[in-house]
Every structure is written in C-alpha cells, then in structure tokens.
C-alpha cells in the first residue's frame, strides 16, 4: 500500500520492573481504520494504549505518527510541548470512566468548548454553537448545555466525553473500554452512536476492550493480546469467526456461551 500509515508502531515494549506490560508490539494503522485490541484484564492492552497515547513511557520501540506538517515523526522523541499539542489537537482519548475525561465542575458546554479554546478559539458565540452542535450529535438535549456533568447519568457523561474529544476533529482517537461500566441497554445506544460517528467522520481509532461485541460492531481489524504478547491479528470478522490461536478460540467461545 502506498498510503502512509497514520500510526506505525514498531517493537513497542513496556516492563514494570521484571513484569512485562506489553512485549514487542508492532502494527500499522491506516487513515480511516478502526483497530480493536482485545484480551482479558492483565493482557497488556491498556498498557499498550497508554504507551501509544503518551501517558506511559515505553522501554523500547518507536511510535511514528503521520503529523500534519512534518509527516511521520516518532512521538516518543518529541518534546513534551509537541506531544501535549498533539494530545489536544490531532489526538483524542476517551477514558473508560467519564470522570477521568471530563471536568466535573465545568458545564457540559464548557467541557465541549475547552479543546476549541485551547487552540485559540476566541468567539464565544461560535464556541457555543459548536458545543450545541456536538451535544446534538451525541444526543444530549441542548437544554442541558449549562448543567454540570455531575448531574448527568453515566451514559450521558460518556456521550459528553465523546463530544468533548471529537469537537476538534481529531485524526486519531484512543478509546479505553468506552462502554465499560454502563448498563447493557445504555451500552447498546452508545455503541450505535459511536458506529454512526465513526462512519460519518471516517475516524481512525484504536479501541481497547474486553467486550467482543464492541469490536464486532466498530473495528475493521483486530489484535488479540495475552500476557503482553500479540497472539493473533486479522480482519475482525475473520478473527472472530475463524480464530486460529487457542487463546482467541477460548475468548470467542467464552463469549458465545454467555
């Protein structure tokens, strides 16, 4: 493929003392692609995500991100200001717990507007319109715009977190168990919403989850992790319908039993 990958991860390794976080992970993510990372807790999928997003320093490897102005650059050797700039412009991070990703004492509108203001938006009316637009897109009643997220239900908080992240038109979204901790019916609605956004916006994303239903709906490709290693990769349907590795087979069958 001649297209430059958006993200090119090479031999990424993270250790916690003698324990392995994730080991020698390599993959490419192309623009418009959604990659799912699955595995049980302790498999290293969250470690991997946090290394990719710059929240954890890996011990080895390279993470090449195709920047807007300078082409592929290793985010690990970038300066802190550059990395932080990416974090509030081209990247977005959706936390499992919306409380980690929202400012609980700032109104919903302010939460959505923050990223715009961080990169220099200085017109109150425009910021407000953008916030309103995004609240509508994530199906939050615009009447609630000046309420604080603390007054929202868990599902609404998660949708607000998504709006807050997507408002600046990020080119790469990291999601950590975005449906975790929500009721099943609320999960379904959120998944539906995410699928719509991913399709409409052509988002590139890396979604970490232990829930195969989430990746079945959202991910183009899948990476299966166990004890810090990638044990299987492939197209989502292929991996889920015809798992090759014994661990993946176990994972898929355990879900089917439920």
């Amino acid at each position, binding site marked *: 493929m001649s297209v430059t990958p958006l993200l090119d991860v090479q031999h990424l390794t993270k250790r916690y003392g003698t324990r392995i976080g994730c080991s020698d992970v390599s993959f490419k993510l192309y623009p418009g692609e959604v990659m799912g990372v699955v595995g049980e807790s302790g498999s290293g999928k969250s470690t991997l995500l946090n290394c990719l997003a710059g929240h954890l320093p890996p011990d080895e490897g390279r993470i090449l991100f195709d920047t807007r102005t300078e082409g592929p650059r290793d985010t690990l050797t970038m300066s802190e200001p550059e990395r932080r700039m990416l974090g509030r412009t081209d990247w977005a991070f959706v936390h499992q717990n919306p409380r980690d990703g929202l400012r609980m004492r700032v109104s919903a*509108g*302010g939460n959505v507007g923050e990223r715009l203001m961080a990169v220099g938006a200085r017109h*109150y009316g425009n910021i407000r319109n953008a916030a309103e637009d995004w609240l509508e897109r994530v199906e939050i009643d615009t009447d609630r715009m000046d309420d604080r997220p603390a007054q929202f239900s868990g599902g609404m908080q998660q949708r607000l977190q998504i709006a807050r992240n997507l408002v600046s038109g990020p080119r790469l979204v990291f999601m950590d168990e975005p449906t975790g901790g929500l009721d099943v019916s609320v999960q379904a609605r959120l998944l539906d919403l995410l699928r719509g956004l991913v399709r409409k916006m052509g988002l590139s994303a890396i979604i970490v989850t232990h829930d195969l239903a989430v990746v079945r709906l959202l991910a183009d490709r899948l990476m299966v992790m166990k004890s810090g290693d990638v044990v299987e990769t492939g197209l989502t349907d292929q991996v889920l319908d015809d798992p090759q590795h014994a661990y993946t087979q176990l994972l898929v069958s355990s879900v089917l039993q439920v």
Partner: protein
Amino acid sequence: MTAQAAAAMDDYNFAYLDEQTKRMIRRAILKGLAVPGYQVPFASREMPMPYGWGTGGVQVSAAVMTPDDTIKVIDQGADDTTNAVSIRKFFERTADIDVTERTSEATIIQTRHRIPEELLNEDQILVYQVPIPEPMRFIEPRETETRKMHALEEYGLMHVRLYENIAKHGAITTAYAYPVKVEDRYVMDPSPIPKFDNPKLESEAIQIFGAGREQRIYAVPPYTKVVSLDFDDYPFDPSKANHPCALCGSVTSYLDEVIVDDKGGRMFVCSDTDYCASRIRRQEQAA
C-alpha cells in the same frame, strides 16, 4: 513605637535587608524583566510586617531603592490608609529616604490594589503587592501543574473559566485581578487591581510585582503589550461606577463609594487621593 525601638532600627542595614539579600532579589527582578510576565521564584525573607500585608512589595522596593529615591506608598489608591502609612514609615525609618504623596514626584511607588490615575513615566518604578501571583491558582491548586501549564502555554482553562462566566451570568464576572496576557506569552495576574486599571498596565514605567509569601517576583517592562483576556464577542470592559467624583468632579477616575449616613446616603469620591487633591488644588488656583 517607643523611642528606644526607633533608635534600634537605625542599626539595621539601609532599607532593612542585608546587601546579599537585596542582590538576590535584584537578580530575580532582572530575570522577571527579561521574561515579562514569568513568575520568578525567589527566597523571600520574613519581614517585620505580616505575610499578606505587602512583604513582597516591601522586599522589591527595598532591593531597588537608593538613598536618592523618593517613595510614595498607596493602599486602595490612598496614601493615608493604615497599611500605606505603616509601610511608608518603615522606609522612612530604615532607609531615611524622602517620601511623598505626589505621584509625579515619586521615583518608586509601592501600591496595593490600584494603579495611580496619573500616567507614569520612564523614571518611575511601580511596585505591586501581590497576594496570589498564580492566575490559574483557583482552577488548579497545584504549583507543579500550573508551572507546567505556563511552560507549555496551556491556557485553555483560563478561557473555559470566562466561558463559564458568560454561560452563567451573561458577562465576564471577574471584577478585579483580571487576568492578562503579557507580550503574547505568559498569562499573568495583575494583582487585585480593579479591572478598570488594566489598560494602564501598558506603561512607560517599570512595573514589578512582588509576592512575599508565595516567593515570586514578576515584571512588566516599559512599553510591553498587555492584553486582558476576553472573547471577540464579549470584549474586555474596564467599567467603573457611572458617577463623577463628589469632591473634584472627575468623571474618568476610579471611585470609592462612601456611605455617609445610616439612611442609605452615599457619595462617590476618587480612590486616588493624590489625583483628587491635585485636581482640587488646580481648581482653587484657577478660581
């Protein structure tokens, strides 16, 4: 103060602080002038007045003071408020320098909460007393975090705060200590001056801000760009009480509201006592 104690004060070094300490403070001031709006940490000393009562300003004034200087001290714009009197006396006693109430005669003006109405010139230094130097302190209480935010120019939260104001009240509700951006780089707290004074932060004089308890010095050199944070459609508004001064008739100066009786009667008078008095003097001479 008893006569004995007053005599004892003569044993202290010129302007109380020893020369080593003054040199340390002057280094911090120079650094502050070189990086406008940046908060320079300095090893603030315990002064003989309490923290929060101008120890930062006093240390800065002491460090820049020479025997030829003339100092004016104001609090709330006035020379005769208790704290201004106390600090002026301190310098009279420890530095034996000339004091004045006239803005134009002073070479050093130490102030709390106001900028004089009369425009300052290149031969003057305005020293501010600062309680909380960090403009983001009430958004982020951690010093380690706010320093990082300054270093990386992450000022989005400042505007989030203004956004919240407008969303809730229809206007920016910061009336004093209104944050500014200095020379397009550092967001700075101008100390608790009313926002009315913000436009005067762009000045011909050297402005030095001293926060004793918080151990920070920062500065705005002459002719430096100082912009009050706002939105394009909600511009900064340096408003004040819409009255003339009851004593001198000024319609442009910042006013104090004085309650004159217990039936709700009140009058508005200039907060800058020297400005008011000199206007009255001129009017009397003209009459």
